Each structure stands twice: as structure tokens, then as C-alpha cells.
């Protein structure tokens, strides 16, 4: 009973981690952009959802239909306007990594600054679907279940797209070897832009969903970036399944330690788990060794 309780809340938390990390694994794995402003997009989406809900009376799931396409377009435009230039300029993958870190670091400040001007630095929170639901005899918030379900649907859907469709195969090909991908007539620029935009859409979906139950402020973006980065790295860059498994592992570790050891050690435990896994598998759980 206690165990089911803990496992269930661990899975919900882990699902949330996976949800917020899936976009990054696409952006970094396929588009090769190490996006430090990732979390700012999550916060921006959360603010939009907040504004839709409290200002216009549009509930968050309906808000998804507006926010996600918008985020897709914005991210596509950002890739086209700002990042293609860097990609074209970079001679090596390492050079692109450095340039994208620097550029998205600038972007981070711009987006955060806009959010600060628009919403100020205060905390925001609203209540939607905050009703208890009983699952297997333990109680859980409906909004968290919705987020978990969305993570499963999005993750599963993406997995199918990536493995079963031509588009997905193209994206994976670009992720594995951009040069060879070109040889088989894949337009890697278009594929990368698409992957980056898709990642942007995913993180926006994550932002809308977590805004239902997390308190957020304009300056919190970087926390989500780092969390997502850890999930992505632990799972193996560019691997959706890895993302899901790593997210779940982290969520479970956090909840189990909190319940059975000491809530003060939750973060220490997740970082230990992360570091341990990297020492055991240097390229993440599902990653191929880099060399």
C-alpha cells in the first residue's frame, strides 16, 4: 500500500520530468543545438496558459491547441533566423556546440527579460483540475494524472513517428550521422529546423501542463533547463525511450528517497543516481558510445 503510493507518485513525477525533457532531446540530438534557453520557453508557455485561463477563460488543455502550434512556429522562426547561420558557420560539431551555448544563453536573457517586463518577478499559480482522483487505492491530483497521460501519449506518439515513418527515419538518420544522411537525399537543414521546432512545441506543451500544478515565476526557467538536460544526458542524447526511462528513474528515486529515507536527500539522491549512471554508461542509458 505504502509502496503503491510511493510508486504512483514517483511515476507521475517521473512522467513530468520525461515530458519536460523530450523537446530538448530532439533539439540537441537531431538539430544539434544545445539550447540553454529551453526552460525559458517552458516558462513562457506556462505564462501563456496562465493568461489564457485567468484572463480569457480558456482551460489549459484547450490552451495546448493554441500554445503548441504557436511555439512550433516561433521556434522554427528562431532556428531559421538565428541558428541556421551558426550551423552554416560551424566547422565542427564542437564549434557548433560552443556557438549554440553562447547564442542560446543570450536568448535566455532576452526571453526572461520580456517575461519580467510583462509579468514581473512575482510567483504565479492557478488552480485547474486540482481534484483528488483515487488510483489503485491511493490519491493523486487529476492535473498531475493529465500531465502523466500527456507525457505517455506524446512520448508514445513520437516514438511511433520516429520509428515507423519516413520523417522519423530521416530525423534519426540526421541524429546519427548528418553527413551520411545527406548522401541519401535527406535535406538536413529542413530536418534540423523541423526537429528544433518540434522540440519547441513539446516544451511548450510541457509548460502548459506543469503550470496546472507548479508555482512558477519568470526567473525559474533555468531550473527546468537543467532538469531537462540531466534527463536527456542520463537517457542518452536524442533517444526518446531513454528520456522516458531516465525521467521515470529520477522521479521514482526522488519519491522513494523522500518516503523511505529523508526528503532532505531527494536531490542528492537524484544527482548521485545521475552521476552513477554516467560512470557506468558514459553515453547515457540508451546512448551509443561517442567514439
Amino acid at each position, binding site marked *: 500500500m505504502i509502496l503503491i503510493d510511493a510508486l504512483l507518485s514517483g511515476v507521475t513525477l517521473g512522467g513530468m520530468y520525461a515530458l519536460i525533457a523530450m523537446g530538448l532531446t530532439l533539439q*540537441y540530438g537531431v538539430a544539434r543545438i*544545445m539550447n540553454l534557453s529551453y526552460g525559458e520557453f517552458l516558462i513562457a508557455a506556462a505564462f501563456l496558459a496562465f493568461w489564457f485561463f485567468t484572463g480569457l477563460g480558456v482551460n489549459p488543455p484547450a490552451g495546448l491547441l493554441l500554445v503548441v502550434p504557436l511555439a512550433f512556429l516561433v521556434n522554427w522562426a528562431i532556428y531559421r533566423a*538565428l541558428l541556421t*547561420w*551558426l550551423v552554416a*558557420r560551424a566547422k565542427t560539431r*564542437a564549434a557548433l*556546440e*560552443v*556557438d549554440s*551555448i*553562447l*547564442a542560446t*544563453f*543570450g*536568448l*535566455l*536573457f*532576452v*526571453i*526572461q*527579460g*520580456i517575461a*519580467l*517586463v510583462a509579468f514581473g518577478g512575482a510567483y504565479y499559480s492557478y488552480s485547474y483540475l486540482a481534484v483528488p482522483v483515487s488510483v489503485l487505492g491511493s490519491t493523486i491530483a487529476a492535473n498531475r494524472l493529465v500531465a502523466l497521460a500527456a507525457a505517455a501519449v506524446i512520448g508514445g506518439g513520437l516514438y511511433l513517428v520516429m520509428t515507423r515513418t519516413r520523417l522519423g527515419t530521416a530525423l534519426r538518420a540526421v541524429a546519427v550521422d548528418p553527413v551520411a544522411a545527406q548522401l541519401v537525399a535527406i535535406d538536413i537543414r529542413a530536418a534540423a529546423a523541423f526537429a528544433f521546432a518540434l522540440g519547441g512545441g513539446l516544451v511548450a506543451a510541457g509548460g502548459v501542463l506543469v503550470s496546472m500544478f507548479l508555482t512558477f515565476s519568470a526567473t525559474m526557467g533555468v531550473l527546468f533547463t*537543467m532538469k531537462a*538536460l*540531466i534527463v536527456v*544526458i542520463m537517457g542518452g*542524447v536524442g533517444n526518446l525511450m531513454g528520456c522516458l526511462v531516465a525521467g521515470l528513474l529520477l522521479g521514482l528515486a526522488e519519491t522513494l528517497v523522500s518516503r523511505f529515507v*529523508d526528503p*532532505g*536527500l531527494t*536531490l*542528492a539522491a537524484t*544527482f*548521485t543516481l*545521475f*552521476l552513477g549512471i*554516467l*560512470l557506468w554508461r*558514459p*553515453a*547515457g542509458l540508451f*546512448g551509443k558510445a*561517442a*567514439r
Partner: protein
Amino acid sequence: MTFLPLIPATLLVAALATLPLYADGYCLSLSLSLLNYTVLATAWAMFSGPTRYVSLATVAFFGIGAYSVAVLGEVLPWPLVLLIAAAVGGAVALLVGLSTLRLSGVYFVVFTFGLAELIRQLVTWYEVNVTRALGRYVFVDVTQAQIYWQMLALATLVFLTGWLVGRSRLGFALRIIGDDETVAPHVGIDITIVKVALFALSAVFMTLAGAIMAPRWTYIDPAIAFNPMVSFQVLIMALLGGAGRLYGPLLGVIPLTLLFEFLIARFPNHFSIILGLVFLVIVYLVPNGVAGLTARRAAR
């Protein structure tokens, strides 16, 4: 081997050392901040430049230094405190270095970030559950000028070390590793030892910087000592200046620190937006870091 560059460098250091005699508190404070980031960024580039391993563990060592002072500052003589801090920082770096250097690329980056956060969490947990007080008060009797002189000495030491390393066998080995890691073993270089040694050396400097800065804040808690923004800022400064040369990071530290300072004063409410835009412009216009730019000018 020529010692010629040492002459102007000595003069420069001597000139800088007189600063506390006539500068006001703010000017001194700004110079101290410049020196602090110079030490951190140069030490960072000492390891990360040639090996191309991007480390986000800067603040882990900086924080270890600060905490050594918080714990020992009031009970031991100052030089001994610094010595212990350096030893702890170096030891942790050796341990980490030995266990992590088989990670590559972004895995190493995020690993080092996770490491800094883990240390912060463990320190927090220890303070909460053992000492039962989270913050520590540092009442070490030291003036701002003394902190400045210590930091200047440390900066001089960093540059001297970097310069000597660049001229030694170690430096030669590093350049080979940076150029081609698979070739290195074939020319008789033990990559692991070289990399770990350098990682520890750079960590010792970062630790000392943290130890010297700590008395400035009176109060230290894990969030202050292990603030991850320090790691990011150092990384950005070093990359922007150019991590490939000894003086590269300096060329990132000075303009960026002054830029931050200028923007924060002129646009306290739109600081983030303008900083971000300026940053983007710099990234697009200065592709290989400031050092790369000047080197290209010189080559022309």
C-alpha cells in the same frame, strides 16, 4: 625559452598593486571582481582550452574554497586555511578527474554540473542535520585591500603557471591531446595522467579564489557558495574571450564584466533583454572569441 614577456607583466602587476592606495571602494570592488573572474576563467581555460572538455564544476571548487574559510576561518591562521582549502579542492578534483575523464562532450559538461549540485545538496544536508544551522558567519578580519592584493597575487600565479605549463612538456602533451586524442598515446603521452593533473591544478586555483573571496560576504550558505551562475558566467567569459590562449579568457572577462556593470546601472529594469541582445550580437560578430579576432588581425 624567453623570459622577455615577464618584464612588462611585472610592471603591470606592480602598477595594479598600488590600486588600493588611491581607488575608492567601488573601483576596488570592481577590480576585485575582474580579478576574481580572471582567475576563474583563466584557470578554467587552463584545463578546458587544450583538452576541449567543457567543465561546469567551477563553482564546486569555488564553493569548497569558500566553505573551507567558513569552517576554519576563525580557528586557524589564514595561510593554513588557504593551504587546507587548496588541498581539499585538489583532492576532490583528483577524485573527480580520475572517475570522469572517460566521459566525452556534453556528457562531461552535464556531469560536472551535476557534481556541483550534488556537493551543494550534501553540504546543505550536513548543515541541516548535523550543525543545525544552514548559514555560516565569516567574521575574518581582513580589509578589502588585503583581499584585493591576495587576489592579484593569485591572478599573477595563475598566469605564471599557465605560461610555464605552456612551455613545458605537459603543455606540449596537452596541445597534442587537444589536436588529436587518438594520436597522443602513440607518441608516448599518458593522457589520463596529463588531464587529471591539469584538472586538479585548475581546480586548486578556483578553490583558492573562493577562499579569498569568502570573507567579503560575511555570511555563506550553500546557495551563495555554490551558485551555478558562477560556473556559467566563467564558461561564457572564457569561451567569448577564447579558451585557446593563455590571455584569451582575460579578453572575455574584462569586456563582459564592464558590460554587465554598465547595463545594470543604465537599464536596471530591462537589463536582461539588453544583455541578451548584446550577447547575441557579440556571438554573431565575434565567432572565435576575442582572442581569435585579435590573432586574425595580427596575422593579416
